[in-house]
């Protein structure tokens, strides 16, 4: 059923070798092609629109894979997924999208994820983007994630896109209720003429709501990146935004973190930095026998780890 190319894409975005363990849904070229629900982890196609509902029962532990792959050119795929993690459950969810565009046209995937992490539950969510294909073909990914972290719940988002995607516009919105914790790691590398924009709005709704946003990026070639991480505290929440970019060649990076408090007990911090690779770092690695190019690569791959 899955071709060698499919398997390669699945490996890139979901680290899958063969059939996923646990519950899964694989979507290829606009259609769900394989799916497995488990007791307590239901995956069902939506009736009225493209996409799936992933419903995890309270207290359930496990892993869910819901990768998307595109292997055709001139294809525009739009999905709406709803993910609900029941109270006290503990779930690792691997999403992600891999595009192999074989032609000169555009291959585009727009995913809307609505994620609810119920009281006391824990979710680790990773979403990796990968693109490859013919010179001239465009690969476009526009994910939107709307997240609700309920009282005492924990959500960790890891969003990774390293090369290969020509255009991306990512929107992430989260509400964190009392005692809820959100950690978001973003890793991005753009090259050539690629563009990437990431808009993040995290709302700390009540006391002891906390959030940490860590964004690391590398911009090479003539690519451009924009970051708009915003952190808003309605109550006595605590939050930290950190944007750190390495800029190279003719690239452009704009980083506009915003912190916004509506309560005098809120504590919000933002840090943003853009800079080239430090000369002293290159020199150190070259003194270990690496060439300048090897040193650069080692620094970048560490930075994006």
């Amino acid at each position: 059923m899955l071709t060698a190319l499919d398997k390669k894409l699945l490996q890139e975005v979901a680290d899958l070798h063969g059939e996923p363990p646990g519950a899964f849904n694989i979507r290829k070229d606009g259609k769900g092609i394989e799916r497995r629900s488990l007791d307590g982890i239901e995956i069902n196609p939506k009736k009225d629109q493209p996409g799936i509902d992933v419903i995890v029962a309270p207290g359930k532990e496990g892993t869910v894979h819901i990768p998307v792959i595109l292997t055709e050119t001139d294809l525009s795929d739009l999905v709406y997924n709803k993910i609900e993690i029941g109270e006290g459950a503990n779930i690792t969810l691997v999403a992600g999208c891999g595009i192999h565009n074989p032609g000169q046209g555009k291959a585009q995937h727009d995913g809307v994820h609505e994620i609810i992490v119920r009281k006391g539950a824990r979710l680790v969510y990773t979403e990796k983007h990968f693109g490859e294909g013919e010179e001239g073909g465009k690969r476009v990914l526009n994910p939107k994630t709307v997240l609700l972290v309920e009282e005492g719940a924990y959500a960790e988002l890891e969003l990774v896109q390293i090369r290969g995607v020509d255009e991306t516009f990512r929107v992430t919105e989260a509400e964190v209720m009392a005692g809820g914790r959100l950690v978001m790691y973003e890793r991005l590398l753009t090259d050539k003429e690629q563009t990437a924009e990431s808009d993040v709005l995290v709302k700390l709704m009540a006391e002891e709501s906390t959030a940490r946003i860590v964004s690391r990026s590398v911009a090479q070639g003539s690519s451009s990146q924009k970051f708009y991480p915003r952190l808003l505290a309605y109550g006595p929440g605590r939050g930290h935004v950190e944007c750190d970019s390495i800029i190279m060649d003719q690239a452009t990076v704009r980083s506009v973190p915003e912190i916004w408090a509506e309560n005098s007990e809120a504590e919000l911090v933002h840090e943003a930095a853009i800079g080239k690779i430090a000369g002293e770092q290159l020199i150190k690695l070259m003194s270990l026998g690496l060439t300048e190019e090897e040193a650069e690569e080692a620094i970048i791959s560490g930075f994006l780890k």
Partner: protein
Amino acid sequence: MLSLENISLELEVEERKVPILNDINLIFEAGKMYALTGPNGSGKSSVARVAMGIYKQTAGQVFYNGEDISGLGITERARKGIGYAFQHPARFKGMPVKDMLELAFKHSDGYNCQVLRDIGLCPDDYLERTLDNSLSGGEIKRIEIATLLALNPKVRIYDEPEAGIDLWSFEQLIDVIGNSHREDTTTVVISHQEKILNMVDEIVLIENGTVSMRGSRDEIWPRIKESAECSCRRSCRLEEDIYADCPR
């Protein structure tokens, strides 16, 4: 054998050429240990940086085993066997200690845990730590030395290895530097520490960008003792009695 012949160095500071080193002549032989000492800002690190190829000398030549390596870059010199543990090691966001050691081991062989133990760091605690600001000055300094040990070069230059290291680890550090020295290695330690000056074959005193004296510990120590001790008193007058062996 590494030798610097008639080395002068000027660096550009705010569009002005500033003389840093002036006609330095030094020979570092295989199998011997050397100390470079002298006041802050006298040019010790600059000598090391010229040897490593980080600074390009304005005049003079650098020879390694008879070969003129003046024109070689840092990478080539490293591959020939010259190694340098920096005075102020760079920090790397995201890079684990393990990866740094692996890069160092790539051109040699060995086991990456032992070098950390040698320097008093428990591998379980440190291999996954990242080389960023979460490490203290002393920790980053020790990892820098461990990296040089991992690289295991023929010529090893340690730039103020004792900085930020507490007294107990200092003893261990001296042992490591001494034990890793072999018949075919050249060890150069930039230091003010009497104990280090005591263990080397030759001390080189650098002042104002030139070699002002070179000789045995007994010849040099009387000359620098005063300034070393004087600054020691100033920096830790209150603890003088507690720390008889006060690090400068």
